[in-house]
């Protein structure tokens, strides 16, 4: 009885590519998975940073809104005071004009003393009205009747606009724009987070490449994963 012949690999030389595909490719894939994980972590960190900025902008937008509304309250309060003063101014000057007309008719009715008194009262009213106006509001915002010289209208809208612009602190605020910036930061975080899904997809493909028994499929899967990784990472960072 002879000993059984045991087949041996001795003397058989494995080709380099095949050895790479069998053993080294898995090592490369593991490295790639690690690289993609690190990239994903970096994207998440970047997204978190942007989220923080968005929160800061939110707070800023609210603070700006508070300031803007405080300014609005101040402007409206001043505007109403000026309008009130204007109404009194208008009443006084109209009254003065009417008193002068009245003085003429009183004089014509044979009441010279009363006419003089009316004229005097008109003069006092006019003086007091002008004096009060100069202390309370800007007459450049007043429209006058060209014929009678009586004030007719206070340009409220223009005055409001100017008062708002005069408040330089509030004028430069734009809470809506700040809020839009916050929303934009959040859109960017969202966008970055979206690309991590592509990275995980690449990891899925690399995992498939690792576990597949088909030697032909492995490089294809790994290549697709690498392409996805490069494209998604590039778009994520370049587009941001």
């Amino acid at each position, binding site marked *: 009885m002879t000993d059984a012949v045991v087949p041996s690999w001795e003397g058989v030389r494995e080709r380099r590519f095949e050895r790479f595909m069998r053993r080294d490719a898995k090592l490369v894939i593991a490295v790639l998975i690690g690289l993609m994980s690190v990239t994903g972590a970096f994207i998440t960190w970047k*997204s978190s940073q942007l*989220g923080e900025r*968005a*929160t800061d902008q*939110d707070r800023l*937008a*609210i603070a700006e*809104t*508070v300031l*803007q*509304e*405080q300014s*609005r*309250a101040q402007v*409206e*309060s001043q*505007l*109403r005071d000026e*309008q*009130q003063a204007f*109404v009194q101014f*208008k*009443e006084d000057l*109209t*009254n003065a004009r*009417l*008193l002068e007309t*009245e003085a003429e*008719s*009183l004089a014509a*009715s*044979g*009441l010279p003393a*009363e006419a003089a008194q009316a004229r005097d009262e008109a003069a006092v009213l006019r003086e007091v009205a002008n004096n009060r106006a100069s202390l309370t509001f800007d007459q450049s915002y007043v429209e006058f009747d060209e014929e009678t010289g*009586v004030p007719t209208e206070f340009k409220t809208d223009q005055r409001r606009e100017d008062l708002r612009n005069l408040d330089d602190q509030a004028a430069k605020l734009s*809470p809506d724009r700040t*809020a839009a910036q*916050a*929303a934009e930061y*959040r*859109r960017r*975080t*969202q966008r970055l*987070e*979206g690309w*991590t*899904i592509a990275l*995980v*997809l690449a*990891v*899925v493909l690399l*995992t*498939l490449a*690792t*576990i597949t028994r088909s030697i032909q499929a492995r490089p294809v899967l790994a290549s697709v994963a690498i392409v996805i990784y490069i494209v998604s990472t590039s778009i994520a960072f370049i587009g941001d």
Partner: protein
Amino acid sequence: MPDVEAPEIELDEDAPTFRRRLALVVVLITLFGAVIAYLHEQNSNFEDNAARDAQMASIRGFGHQVQALSEYGLDYSVFVQREVLQRRAVVASARRRSTLDAGLAALYQSEGDRFTELRDAIDESTPVQDFDTASERDAELQREPDVERLRQKVFSTKSNDYGDKADAYVALLTVLAVSLFLTGLSLTLVGRGRYLLAIPGVAIAVVCVGWAGLITTGKITSVSQEAVSLTADGQRALVSGDADAAVDRYREAVADSPEFGTAWARLADAEFLAGAQPSANSQFQSLSDRDATTRAVDAGEKAISLGEGDASLLSSIGFFHFLLGQYDRAEELSRQALEGNDQFPPLVFNLGVVQVATGQASEARETYERGIELLADNRFQFLRQQIIGAARTDLEIAVDQTPDSEELAQEMKGLLALAERQVFGTPEDAPTTAPDDASVTDVSISTDSFRVFASYTADGFDSGTELTNIWYFRPLDRDGQGPFEQLFALDQVTFTGDDPVETFPVESGDCLPGGDYRVEVYAGADLLATGDQHFSDSPLGTLVVDGGEDFGFTMCRPEEWTPPPSEVTLEPGTLAFGNPDDPTQNVLVFAFPIGAGSGVDGTALLNATIQSVVAQQGITLDGPPEAGQALLGRTVDGSDARLDTTTVTGTNSLGDRMQITGSVGADNVVRLVMVSAANSDDLEIVRSELVNSIRFLRVPDVTASDGG
């Protein structure tokens, strides 16, 4: 043989395949987890954006509120200025009429003209022309703050919705982690045991996929800007007193955005108010048309289903259910409301009245005692009587719907009568029950110059014992059916002593509306007597109020009567109306102050004025002038006062009967009323219906007080 146990070698032929498959499952779960994390992040971002927008809207609401208030303040102050000028024009005109000096008359004439022109000049500066337009202006200005409030609510709801989604994703991720844990743990086992872990892990992941689908397709409340705008318009209409227009706007809003809970909640209130009769208790309306109440319930339930759940809404909708006799739901909502706010007495009484209607005696007692205890708090001092009035009306409704509850309802009304004594300043140690042998009999209700009063005989009391008189009213259009409404403004105390005991005459709304009046007389918590009286509407037709501060008097006149044609110029401060169907029926009223410098004696001027009218109209007098107190005035502190009057009656050249009644008081104001009709009977009707309704304002407080 060596004493060594051979290692157990388990043959596991499918282990590599299992591991491969499991690795694939793990990475797929991870991929799914990444997608969920993305969705969580997305919803968190939307939540943060909406929360920020809500805060900004809230702050803007404050800013707009300040602007609206300051703008209204200006408009109203200019209106006051206008009224002052109008009054000065009236005074100048009156002085012109009362002076005998031609020069002074010319001076007053020109003064009057000047003030009228000034008034017209000021008039352009404000949209407020009277109290109605003031109310409209206020409602208009409040629109913008309301828009911001609504926007705040919309953003808050949106933020909550996104927040809920984000939270759900977090929960899902946690469950997914369990799935991964089980799947991973299965790799540590061999044989079939590993499937006991792997299969549940995969199953959980599959369930998570379905769950994620549900979360992702879950709705976010969507409300358009148009719906917000329409809802604010509805509120504006409601504040202006146009509940029907408000209902229309709210309906448009909910048609545009059916998920807008606030619009549904407001629609519920507006529906109820649109079906309500004008009420003495405008703040706490209890009675409305049944169809309108049903619509209000539908809208309210929709609002609740959409997450609206503030205590006030829940209590209102609960009360609407009570009105429809749906007591279980009414009690449920009223209890829910009290879980949200148990410190506001009307919400407590809303539960109490349901307990009365359902015969829960001890619970009802406890609830009413709790409400009354809350009511004693000083912050309710201005609402106390209104709240008690509304609670009494609700008890009337309970008795109307469930007559068996009458005894329990009366017990609660007794508690409320004791609570109302705080309003009247009754000493705390006053008796809370009537003496055993005490009685109140012969209760009658009468009218005097469009005011109602009660009189009765009180026996068995110590002199000066306080009795509480509680008034109720049911309008004519109810045909004597249904519950009464409590008129808290008429409530007052009387004191026993000389019989009959009489209450002060008090007005019940404008122009004494016809209907059923009832008075309940209490000694402490004990009801001693009840009196009822029916009053018809005026034989002259529906009466409306006219005049006001700028005229110096108010009066009721038939709605159909018209002022003189425009070519007839009335003196400032004069009102005149005629019956278009009977030209003989007329009324003319004016009040003018006599110039202090005119040197004219008031009584002489009054007589001269009457004589002048008599001469102008060609009146043949029936007899000499009669002295009396035929006119009623109101002092600046709101008390009624009878005015000494001179009245002449006669027939004019056309054969019409005429009566002129005049008065001049210590304030040197001449007040004159002239009425005419075809015959004496008609004249008496015109006089009793119109002259009795006149209230001259700001009369001096030196004449005999006549209630109020």
